[in-house]
């Protein structure tokens, strides 16, 4: 109902208005998952999974359906307690923390089936996604500030949803909701993002744009990315390293080029399908 008072900024300007964390210069691991095991009843979802993500990297996780990728994400962000193992983020053990505490440490995720606030507009979805450890009680009980509004509008522009800013999130298409969810995460100024199949359901013609944006996110916003993805073209274009999971265990860790030709990986995929 209130159009944005100022025309949206260009991509470049947007990134400047955002707080811009330094790119990790050292090769210190940002996320270190060690021997994480998680079972549900008798079903083993993850068995002694270990993986490492360096600051500033884009890492992909692939694997056939049911190989425990999403479970691993859930374990990392604290959706439920893990059985054993350790998860260290930014030098801090987080495996005993709740999902909210982990989010406050700027480790966020998106969901495979989108989760947006369906009966709120796209802009409102962003307004309340500000980093929570910096908000004051006063700002909670006031209307969104101009800074917040600008930032939200800028992010929508960046993600390509500015035209739909006043739409209810529930009225957006599945792909648009995915993008909105990504924008919500960015609003929160994360250090690291776990993306669960970011391109699923997105119009194939737009996928290249999305890959570019994800790279921009890493470059301009300084966000480390860990991505679950089925689309091999995306994986090959995006990731610098790839972990392949099967039956809840890490099968292989390698560069995209090597993975492509790895027999075990191909077998795992074919075997599962």
């Amino acid at each position, binding site marked *: 109902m209130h159009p944005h008072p100022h025309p949206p900024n260009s991509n470049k300007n947007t990134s400047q208005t955002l707080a811009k964390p330094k790119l990790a210069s050292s090769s210190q691991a940002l996320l270190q998952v060690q021997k994480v095991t998680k079972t549900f009843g008798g079903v083993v979802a993850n068995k002694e999974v270990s993986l490492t993500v360096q600051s500033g990297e884009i890492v992909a996780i692939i694997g056939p359906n049911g190989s425990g990728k999403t479970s691993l994400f859930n374990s990392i962000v604290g959706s439920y307690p893990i059985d054993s193992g350790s998860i260290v983020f930014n030098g801090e053990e987080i495996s005993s923390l709740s999902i909210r505490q982990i989010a406050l440490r700027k480790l966020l*995720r998106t969901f495979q089936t989108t*989760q947006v606030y369906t009966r709120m507009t796209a802009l409102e979805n962003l307004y309340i996604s500000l980093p929570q450890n910096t908000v004051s009680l006063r700002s909670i009980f006031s209307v969104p500030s101009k800074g917040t509004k600008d930032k939200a509008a800028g992010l929508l522009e960046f993600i390509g949803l500015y035209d739909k800013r006043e739409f209810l999130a529930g009225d957006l298409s599945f792909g648009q909701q995915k993008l909105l969810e990504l924008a919500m995460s960015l609003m929160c100024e994360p250090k690291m993002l776990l993306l669960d199949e970011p391109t699923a359901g997105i119009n194939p013609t737009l996928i290249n744009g999305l890959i570019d944006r994800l790279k921009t996110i890493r470059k301009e916003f300084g966000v480390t990315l860990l991505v679950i993805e089925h689309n091999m073209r995306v994986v090959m274009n995006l990731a610098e390293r790839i972990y392949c999971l099967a039956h809840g265990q890490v099968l292989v860790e390698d560069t995209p080029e090597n993975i492509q030709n790895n027999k075990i990986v191909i077998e795992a995929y074919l075997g599962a399908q």
Partner: protein
Amino acid sequence: MRDFTKNDIRLFIALCSLGLVAPILFPAYINQLSFAWIFVVIALSWDMQGGHMGYNSFGNIVFFGVGMYAAASFQILPFFSLGDWTEAGGVQTFEHSVSQYFSGYALGILFAAIAAVATAFIFGNLILKMRGHYFAICTLALGVAIGEVFASIEILGAGQGLSLAVWPRGFLDDTYRRLFFYYQGFLLFVLCFLSISYIIRTRFGMTLNAIRDGEDKAESMGLNTNFYKISSWILSAFFIGLCGALVGHLVGFIDPIDVAFSGATYGIWMIIMAIIGGKGRLWGPVIGALFFHAFNEIFWTYFLGWQRVALGLIIVIIVVFFPEGILGFFQVRKKSSVSALSTQPQQQKK
């Protein structure tokens, strides 16, 4: 939808001016008008969780009852022994002097708010972590249980009930007594409406909506959902507790089950009023409450012995033909014209 448009402001001012002069225009109806404002307030307050936050509470009547008892007993306590006051066979008569009445009154109102807020805080911490049906059933059980507990507290009169302090004899005319309560109800409405209309525009209000739409998501974004849920329940309890205090004074006699913790009347009415009007919308509970109250009164007058049949049928009709509430009905009809327009601005922009 969230913003307070010019029309909203006009409407609100119109309603307020109507509210200010109504007792002068219709002196015979002051009491009913007081109840109308109170109904609006409890419906609006319920809608804070039920509508905006999506937590369907059947137990908000607890705050109503607690507020009522607090207001009544703290008006008595400083001046008389509560035990003597409520004792069934007591032969003493008690009368408040003017100053006692009003100082006690103020104290009672204060404690009504405190008690309701404290109750909301304590139980909010315990049960607001549940969701969906479990939350609903838990609040329902809480409402019944607390009512029954109050019905067995001797010092508050147990099943005998508790009579409130009587307006000081000989002080001012009776019309002033009624105006005194009416304008409090009206003030409560103005306060409640303004705070809620403000709150739903803030990030707080948006977060409540977010909790309604996806609490897990909100939590995974780092939002402290518990804080928001409890705060909103407290806010709701604050207003409902004050309403309870006011209703206590208007009725003059508290029966634990039939007046204070009356889940079967006020308890379910606050939900029905919000839904009839359209829940989760600012004006919905207002319309719903006025509608409900009006029809209630009309039926009572004209359908003696059949009034509940009539009320029941009208509820069924509303639900069947206006599923989104009265307000939702008009919005849906309007939406068809809006959506035709909404595609055009995009083209115009390019």
